[in-house]
């Protein structure tokens, strides 16, 4: 699958722990992948930037709360505004995106008040898949207006079929298609390799790849037009 020339960046905060898993998943698809420390500010070389899972800054105050003040988050605002590429937050990354208001709503403590680690059934783009979840604060909450917006913009691309944590409307992930921002609690990067018994995560990365390539096509077309 090489030769597609896709470049991915994986942001590492103190306390991030899914950075290596995310990099290995990207590399499985032949994407050139780099880590960047949380003080990085030049992001334009990346077709996709990941905020991986973990406990950034120890989850003090609330999961994702402190990471939004880091230099790389400031730079991400610019990356999104100019539609340079995709921004994907997984687990703690989704929490950071919500705390930073890059996605609507918030993630709160699971309704059983405990950390939950298991394989969860999900509906993804109309088909059923199974992905691992591992979080203590994964219960998605949003007010009525926000939910209306989510529905009208069709942002709820990933839903639990057996809601494990009490998320409203079974929401497991959101995709802001205008700004190319994706946030999700399940871990597709942990379901790539056959040795781990689950390869369902590949469908997410394959979808992402096709969107990255089509975004590149659009950018190319608009450059030609302006010439």
């Amino acid at each position, binding site marked *: 699958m090489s030769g597609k020339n896709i470049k991915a960046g994986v942001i590492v905060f*103190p*306390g991030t*722990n*899914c950075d*290596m*898993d995310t990099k*290995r*998943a990207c590399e499985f698809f032949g994407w050139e992948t780099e880590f960047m*420390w949380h003080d990085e500010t030049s992001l334009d070389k990346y077709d996709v930037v990941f905020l991986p*899972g*973990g*406990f950034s*800054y*120890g*989850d*003090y105050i609330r999961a994702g709360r402190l990471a939004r003040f880091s230099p790389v988050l400031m730079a991400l605002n610019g990356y999104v505004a100019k539609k340079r590429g995709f921004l994907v937050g997984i687990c703690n990354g989704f929490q950071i995106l919500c705390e930073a208001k890059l996605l609507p709503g918030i993630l709160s403590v699971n309704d059983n008040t*405990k*950390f*939950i*680690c*298991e394989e969860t059934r999900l509906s993804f783009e109309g088909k059923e898949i199974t992905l*691992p979840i*591992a979080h*203590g604060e994964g219960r998605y909450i949003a007010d009525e207006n926000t939910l209306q917006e989510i529905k009208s913009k069709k942002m709820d691309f990933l839903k639990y079929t057996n809601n494990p944590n009490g998320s409203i409307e079974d929401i497991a992930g959101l995709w802001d298609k205008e700004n190319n921002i994706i946030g999700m609690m399940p*871990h597709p*990067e*942990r379901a*790539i*390799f*056959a*040795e*781990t*018994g689950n390869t369902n995560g590949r469908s997410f990365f394959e979808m992402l790849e096709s969107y990255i390539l089509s975004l590149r096509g659009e950018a190319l077309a608009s450059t030609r037009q302006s010439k």
Partner: protein
Amino acid sequence: MQTETKPELYKALGLTDFEYAEIQKRLGREPNKLETYLFSAMWSEHCGYMHSRKYLSKFPIGGAVSHGENAGGIQIGEHVIVFKVESHNHPSAVEPFQGAATGIGGIIRDILAIGARPIALLDSLKFGKITDNFSKHIFDGVVRGISHYGNCIGVPTVAGEVGFDESYTDSPLVNVMAVGIVKKDKIRSAKAEPNKVVIVVGSHTGRDGIHGASFASKELNENSKEDRPSVQVGDPFIKKVLIEATLEILDLKEVQSCQDFGAAGLLSSSSEMAYKGECGIDLHLDRVHLREDGMQPWEIMLSESQERMLFVVEEEGVEKVLNIAEKYEIPSSIIGNTTETGCFKLFWNAEEVANLPPEILAEAPKYTLNEEEPEYINEYRNLTLDKNIPINEAVEKMVCDPNFASKKWVYRQYDHTVGTRTAVKPAQSGAAGIWIHEEGGVIGLAIDSNGRQVFLNPHEGAKNSVWECCRNLISSGFKPLGVTDCLNYGNPEKDEVAYQFVKSVEGIADACREAKAPVVSGNVSFYNESPDRRVFPTPTIGMIGYTNSADKLLKAAFSNKETVILLGKEITDDSNTGGSLYQRVLYDFIGGEVDKTNADLEKKFEETIFELRDNKLIGGCIDVSEGGLFGAVFEGVKNGNTGFKGSLIFCKDEEKALFGEITGRYVISTAELEKTKKILQSKQVQYKILGKCVNNIMEFDKYSFDLRKLYDLYDKSIELEMER
């Protein structure tokens, strides 16, 4: 130097008259006050292994890598899998959440000090009865502590065991095993060489955990809660950062050796480095970065503040180490250097405040223990169980007993998939599987103990604990390779305990020799008793195994229409089933003779199972342990979502037949009965066809059960009790 040391001081610090006289003799002088503090920690049971060292030398170590370092390992290809199990029993009894959390922190640092990246955690937990409110509180706190800490540092908790028995009410056992991976040529030693710089990297040193080592070396009583300041507080966020920083620092060629700060903090880490490297060390305690003002030299030396590492570095590498610490925003300080003097010297504002030969500090006296068989052994051996309850009632009681029931409530709280290496998840088979993509295969990890059997027969019980761990690995498709052990006992100064310890250590040594699995590392925890109760002698065995391909893994799940076969002995009315779980659960009984293991048979089953597997003849494979033959069949049926119709009872005592525990047994399922029989016959192993897998049915002999009801009891028992 201050010179006077009053008897009140050394006694208050836990040193005996004999030990103090020994110190005077070896030093050729009185130790000063600070030095007395140092000895009180280094010559505590926890650091000095005084009652155990003599006996631990019986363990076979051939084939182990890095034995005698912070953790040992087994070589697989170009890599070494480093592993060790350690107890954090006493702190967990007093403060379960922090006690368990810092237990993980401590064992992770041992792995890290070798230069290995931690890739998996396992735990063996023992509590009093789950219906007892105090035990419930400890259980809940320990699980939350492990969940909080393990999940945060990004190391998956992939397997474990949880047991409940009245004997653990006052002294719960919290044993944590950590596993790491390192390239063979990147292994670091704790041995220091002279003329290098000594640097502390990590958290500020505070007053927490002072005398943790001597705290762990005494019995718990009602005043133990006053020991709460002796329990350290962990910060998994700083630990995660420290893991990354340490691995980056150890990648520098100028870094010569590394030690973690464990029991007795800076004192034991620095003196062991000097001792192992046969060099001297000068430490300037006023240069250590501190969390609070006014700390005394002895407090700085004994502090067990978490998340600290000690490095010995060549002069040219110092700047690089400090820069890495700064990148991760971790404090660090240069506190001294190694020397050619052969002396362990401490300074406070340039004044020498202690000067001791490291070998005297490190080599605490070795005690010889009682080996005479205590009376209770014979007494219990001759007890017989002659009660019976209806089988339907017995089956229901067994499936919802928390020792047997599903542990999902526990492992659902542990992140067991982070790291993307988990090839076999909790409850899928007898051992967890961690994919070693660096080498292409999968390591198997198991942890097991059986206090009841060791109590009845320390030698045979301990042997069977090792073989039981082997069976867990073999039934999952792994070849057993190496052992780590955590030896949990009562007060070794008491004759009964001394005998239990000595005989079970010999049992472990014998079994490991027979199984050709060296003991690469280990830990001893004594004094697990209160004035009212003593724990069953509980040697916890942790093992690793390997298979070179994920395709060779076996699952503990049967499929519909397969034939179920018992490999091994049938239970007869004469079988020795002493120590079986059902006797304790149904009748609160413990007694009788423990079944003896047979190494040749165990080896033969290993060969047979692997041959069946390589011929793709095995559907599911389960070793027969707690819950007996019924337990194994039930597990296979439940995991495979099928059912069973056949026969399980081959003697008059029906409960014994169903639930009795004897050694060397597996249950397998196969879709190809004739081919399987051919191999079993050619291997000349004993086997018996038990029945067939039939959807949604549980029928054996004259009994039948509603499977859904049994599943419900099994799945929800612990959760219902804990959420009550």
